[in-house]
């Protein structure tokens, strides 16, 4: 039976949706010679699926045929599902026509592994190359790098894609061996480290020679599946921190495991661990934008993030001796540690206090989340009733007011 594009789209978008990466930002590919598309540094979500996730890129598998049998994956070879494969032309045509109608920012292309890693990746690259060279397309392209891919193939991928990603999937080697016996961590780290070096090399060259081609200007990212294996939040955040510092990744995505099989190598989950996933993203934000060290958030003593409250509040409640913070005098680093105060509010505070002393009312009007911040700030006009120093009382007060505002980060 010959399948039409609509049937393939249903199957291969459905299979690709478990990759949670959605960013279309951080690249700088400018339209030229009257081409199509432009990638600015700010990404755009063109829609949101009914699970609340950003739809920015056309996220597809080239095919869901796969020679591997990883227990967590819906496309695993032992799974009895309908298989399909796009032609290069079909993917190119969908991308161009969706982009022209302003449905998407570009393409995210992954694939099941057929034959071997290089063979698969070469097909993905062919799509990107056609878009760039035959259609003068400057929109965003994210290509998946299949573990085990050779340097020559990755080198070519980097010249056409904005972002590349190799997925770690399972956070530790022993767990990976158990769940996906055909894979191992070194087959992921090898390409990841190669790309890290390449990106740095091209960036350095670019500074010296303007004609140096761009190599994955949006950098690389990875995905870690959470809850399919026993690693705790300390393990996961340590891993992420290393990926940011050593591999210079732009993003680590956390994907709460969704049961896609009843394989007995996997835990029996009724619902995906969505709150845990949300807390990991909040902790990730603290690492990247708030200057926190991993062990301030989780450590040997506190190995799991508190599911009831956000990690910054949890940190503050464990470190009451650092609070209240004098909003008119404290340095930026400390302002960023006040629960309920975000990066933008901190910048507003620092600018505004140069004109005169700020009081409680000023902060409230600036939009600071006082339901949390009020317990941790020292500022003129703070109502006496808000002076509570017992962390347990603060936690229960915040929780009673906060009931409806959970899970709003994504």
């Amino acid at each position: 039976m010959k399948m039409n594009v609509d049937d393939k789209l249903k199957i291969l978008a459905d299979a690709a949706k478990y990759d949670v990466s959605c960013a279309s930002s951080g690249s700088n590919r400018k339209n030229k010679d009257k081409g199509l598309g432009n990638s600015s540094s700010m990404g755009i979500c063109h829609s949101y699926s009914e699970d609340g996730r950003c739809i920015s890129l056309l996220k597809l598998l080239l095919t869901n045929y796969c020679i591997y049998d990883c227990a967590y994956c819906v496309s695993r070879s032992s799974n009895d599902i309908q298989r399909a494969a796009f032609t290069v032309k079909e993917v190119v045509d969908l991308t161009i026509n969706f982009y022209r109608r302003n449905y998407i920012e570009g393409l995210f292309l992954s694939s099941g592994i057929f034959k071997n890693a290089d063979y698969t990746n070469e097909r993905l690259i062919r799509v990107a190359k056609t878009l760039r060279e035959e259609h003068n397309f400057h929109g965003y392209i994210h290509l998946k790098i299949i573990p085990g891919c050779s340097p020559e193939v990755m080198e070519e991928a980097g010249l056409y894609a904005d972002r590349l990603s190799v997925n770690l999937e399972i956070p530790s080697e022993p767990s990976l061996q158990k769940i996906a016996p055909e894979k191992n961590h070194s087959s992921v780290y090898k390409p990841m480290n190669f790309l890290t070096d390449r990106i740095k090399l091209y960036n350095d060259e670019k500074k010296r020679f303007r004609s140096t081609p761009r190599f994955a200007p949006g950098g690389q990212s990875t995905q870690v599946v959470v809850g399919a294996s026993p690693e705790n939040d300390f393990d996961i955040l340590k891993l992420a921190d290393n990926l940011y510092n050593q591999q210079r990744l732009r993003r680590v995505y956390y994907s709460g495991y969704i049961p896609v099989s009843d394989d007995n190598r996997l835990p029996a989950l009724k619902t995906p661990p969505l709150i845990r996933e949300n807390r990991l993203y909040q902790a990730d934000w603290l690492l990247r934008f708030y200057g926190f060290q991993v062990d301030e958030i989780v450590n040997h003593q506190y190995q799991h993030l508190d599911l009831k409250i956000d990690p910054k509040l949890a940190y503050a409640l464990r470190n009451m001796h650092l609070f209240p913070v004098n909003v008119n005098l404290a340095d930026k680093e400390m302002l960023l540690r006040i629960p309920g105060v975000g990066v933008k509010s901190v910048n507003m505070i620092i600018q505004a206090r140069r004109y005169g002393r700020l009081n409680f009312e000023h902060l409230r009007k600036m939009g600071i989340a006082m339901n949390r911040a009020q317990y941790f700030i020292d500022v003129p006009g703070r109502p006496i009733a808000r002076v509570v120093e017992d962390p347990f009382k603060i936690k229960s007060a915040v929780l009673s007011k906060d009931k409806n505002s959970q899970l709003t980060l994504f």
Partner: protein
Amino acid sequence: MIFIYDDTYEGFLSVIFEVYDIKTRPDEIHKKSHFQAGLFGETLEVNTDVERASRVINGLKKKLSARAINNLYRCWLSEIPQIEMVIFRYVAYALKSDKNIESNYAHPDVLEVKKVVKMIGREVHRMHAFVRFQKTKDEVYVATITPDFDVMALLPKHFKDRYQDQQWLIYDTKREYGIFYDLEKVSEIVLENAEWQGRNKVQRAVLDEGEDEYENLWKSYFKATTIVERTNIKLHLKHVPHRYWKYLPEKN
């Protein structure tokens, strides 16, 4: 005194010049088209004077950054009732102050301007996100919008940068004007006898034959990419408020 101007930004700047010229503080400032004469208050209709308007801008350049001056224009585009008075008080504060005041967020008008600029920025971003073109038989990609604020003037660069090789038209069906890119430049246009389908879409009769196909493929994609186990309609609605659904093929 109630000042009236001709609906243009230059007209509004001319009012500011006039206020300083005749040394009379305004109680209210209104667009002519929005003003309904009340029982009380003396009114003064100010003629638009491009020369005077640019003198106001030049005066502000000595007190404010280019960005802050541009933000006042963005604020004015919000069409929020009485936004003119907020901008006027901001300008008066900037002019009389010895140092730059633009980040004194403890000042109510400075904070208000920042908030409105943020609202405008969000609306522009939503237009970047939610504009949906439909291809017509004559090869023009057409989209209709009805933004909360009059942000059309802030849209050309973004769409010109990304769609250089296709003709496109974005039309505000509420304010009845649009911008058209003819493969060379973007110009403002007003359509005579424009007949939209339900005001929000291009009439089916003028659409290209392939249009249905791509809309349907997009709907299929939208459905297939949702993870049912994670359904979170509340979050979905927060990101895609109901009032934008009319633009989106995936939502109707």
